[in-house]
């Protein structure tokens, strides 16, 4: 069995593609390869592949590992608010760490600074309909970054006017009631859809709790341990040979496991 951690010498892959490059249509790799393989007779600037497959040994495109500490998008107040919110969505309890303790706020912060945060890959051309059918899905011009910035501000305004306190200062019960009302669309936030805010935080919380730890959440593989997902162990032939039995090996992430010097 291949140990994924062994493919991460020193945890610093030297041929990493930066976030900006990986999100543009033309990758660094394709430029290098096209420079090598350009058809010059016609002057065409396509990447041309002929005669040999163009891959090279030890070339791969891992994501950039998130280094926890500080926030790149959230303000301190926003981060505190998200911390409090996700801590109610997935609380720390006798079953183990919750979303906050698993680093979900950092996960969301880093996701918002990348292409996801700007809906960079989505179709964002107008016109934007004011009354889409429920079956037509996402039709808002607001990017995730705008949803968080405006939505969190609206939530704070709401809490100030109703409770005269910040969301972070509400009791756990009060927070739960308010989150439940946001979920059902029963609370009217000033100038922002309560359901949109709930959906954004909820969706990203689930992602951050269960995504590979390389993205900053799922710290110590807390989400994977909760359900018993072994991560990227990659070979389960023996599991199928022993039906209806517990899987006992601890989970492994793309960077290995702490015991191997990974995360």
């Amino acid at each position, binding site marked *: 069995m291949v140990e994924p951690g062994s493919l991460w010498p020193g945890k610093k892959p030297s041929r990493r593609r930066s976030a900006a490059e990986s999100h543009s249509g033309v990758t660094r790799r394709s430029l290098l390869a096209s420079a090598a393989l350009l058809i010059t007779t016609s002057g065409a600037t396509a990447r041309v592949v002929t005669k040999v497959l163009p891959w090279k040994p030890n070339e791969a495109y891992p994501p950039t590992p998130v280094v926890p500490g500080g926030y790149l998008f959230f303000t301190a107040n926003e981060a505190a608010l998200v911390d409090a919110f996700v801590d109610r969505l997935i609380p720390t309890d006798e079953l183990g760490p919750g979303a906050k303790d698993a680093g979900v706020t950092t996960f969301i912060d880093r996701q918002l600074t990348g292409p996801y945060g700007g809906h960079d890959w989505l179709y964002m051309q107008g016109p934007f309909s004011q009354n889409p059918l429920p*079956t037509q899905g996402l039709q808002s011009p607001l990017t995730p970054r705008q949803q968080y910035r405006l939505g969190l501000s609206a939530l704070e305004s709401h809490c100030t006017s109703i409770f005269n306190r910040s969301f972070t200062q509400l009791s756990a019960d009060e927070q739960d009631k308010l989150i439940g009302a946001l979920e059902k669309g029963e609370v009217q936030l000033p100038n922002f859809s309560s359901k949109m805010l709930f959906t954004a935080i909820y969706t990203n919380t689930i992602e951050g709790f269960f995504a*590979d730890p390389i993205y900053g959440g799922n710290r110590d593989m807390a989400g994977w341990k909760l359900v018993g997902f072994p991560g990227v162990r990659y070979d389960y032939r023996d599991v199928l040979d022993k039906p209806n039995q517990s899987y006992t090996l601890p989970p492994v992430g793309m960077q290995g496991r702490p015991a191997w010097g990974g995360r």
Partner: protein
Amino acid sequence: MVRRLPRKDVVIVGLGWTGSILAYELAHTGLDVVAIERGPWRDTAVDFNIGTAADELRYAVRQDIFLRPTQETLTMRNNPSQTALPIRKWGSFLPGNGVGGAGVHWNGQTWRFLPDDFRIRSHMIERYGEGIMPEGNHIQDWPVSYDELEPYYDKFERVAGISGRAGNIKGEIQPGGNRFEGARENEYPTPAMKQGYQQELFTKAAANMGLHPFPRPSANISTAYTNPYGCSMAPCTYCGFCEWFGCANYSKASPQTCVLPALIREPTFEARTECEVTKVNLTVDGKMATGVTYVDANGEEWEQPADLVLVCAYGLFNVRLLLLSGIGKPYDPASDEGVVGRNYAYQTGSGSTAFFEDVKFNPFAAAGSTGVALDDFNSDNFDHGPHGFVGGASITCAHTNGRPIRYHPTLPGTPAWGSAWKKGVRDAYQRVANVGAQGSVMSYRNNYLDLDPTYKDALGRPLMRMTFDYQPNEQKMANWMAERCNEIAKAMGAKVTQVNRLGVPWNVVPYQTTHNTGGTVMSSDPKTGVLNRYLQSWDVPNVFVMGASAFPQNAGYNPTGTVGALTYWGLDGIFNYLKSPGALVQP
């Protein structure tokens, strides 16, 4: 300014399964072949590297290797009276991008359609009378039979190394296989996959009910295998990262594993990637294609002249390219005339979720095509008389993965968050089985594709507009199937079951299936299809169109096996065309 490149014998639009197979076979005869692909080149070793491939967030959630809607999407609505809006984010289906196409990210379930599926209109009317045909239907017989396609199915299965157990070899029913399948000349190239504990329960329960379960045919293969092109595959390790991922292990059949290593050695082949074909060019009288125009990564336009144009993009984009090129008359539902965009169809999904106690299903130990299926309720394998619907479904008990961002089931009634959710997720993860029915979708006058009047792609060309909903026939069928699934789930010993009826109206948000069919249908009459029985354009004989866009309606199976068979069948047509250029079928 468009610049003209030197002429090629063959230009291929799109380098997925169909494009790579045709490229190999034609270049192998010495023809000059160029494939033009709008996405990037992708190789297993670097793009699906074992250290980076198993990343649920990146591939299954953020959709890193898929077509980005910012480049091209569709607009959608449920019926012609509504205003279509763009699919801004992929949901219900997820088109691939780049070399390998959907062959990179598929699950690998590789079926043959049943003999009755190919003459479904004639068959249903002969057995039940005209009255069983649904209102507004466009159901039509295929212009090719199962028996004609059998050797081509066989060929594709051999190239892809499919793992399975035959149920009918030359008319002899085989124990443990699918007794309903059409007669096969050969056993599958590799033995059936391992199965999990829930498949064991399903197999016992179904057999006790008098049904006929069998391991479903899989392109994640069970043993090492070398295909007729000399490409080698490795045994699947059941890692649970198939659908939406490239396989790092060379275990899932794809153009990368099964065709490209052979294709690239053909000296008369070249691929141009990150180049988008914008148009098939025609002669002034519109009767012949002269090549294609494409835009490269720098936005420059090129004309590639060629004697033969093979349209091999994903089915939906084949339809759009024909509409943008003026090949064939666009379909108009008001007059019910025209052919391009006609008979768009899809797939139903319904079934039962089954919750058990005291089991360890280990859902993460799976492959995209592990699973045990039964065909007792597919096509016309059962008496439709009492039910009043056309079509059927393959019923399968399967896990394809246990990736937890998208797979964290809870018992009905569990809150969506909080400590109770956390406990619910922990308790259910090992204990849920799914019995699902993947059903046929017939073709109808009001389910179709055309160009959107408002929304444009990044190059300023109209997006395609999809008008689709599940019709009463499909709802009736799928909901009846959900009850059959539920009976089996209960017989498996589930403590709690939840019936999953067909979601209506069709909604673009939840992922359903990337089995979009029709729009450039093959037909025996030019009034009811774009292509003749050899997948050759009725209007422009040096244009052939591959893929599921040729299906007259969809059957209760995944489409790729039939797409592969049609590709080899179409190839024979292309060889005949090359010997004697012209229409292979006189209208």
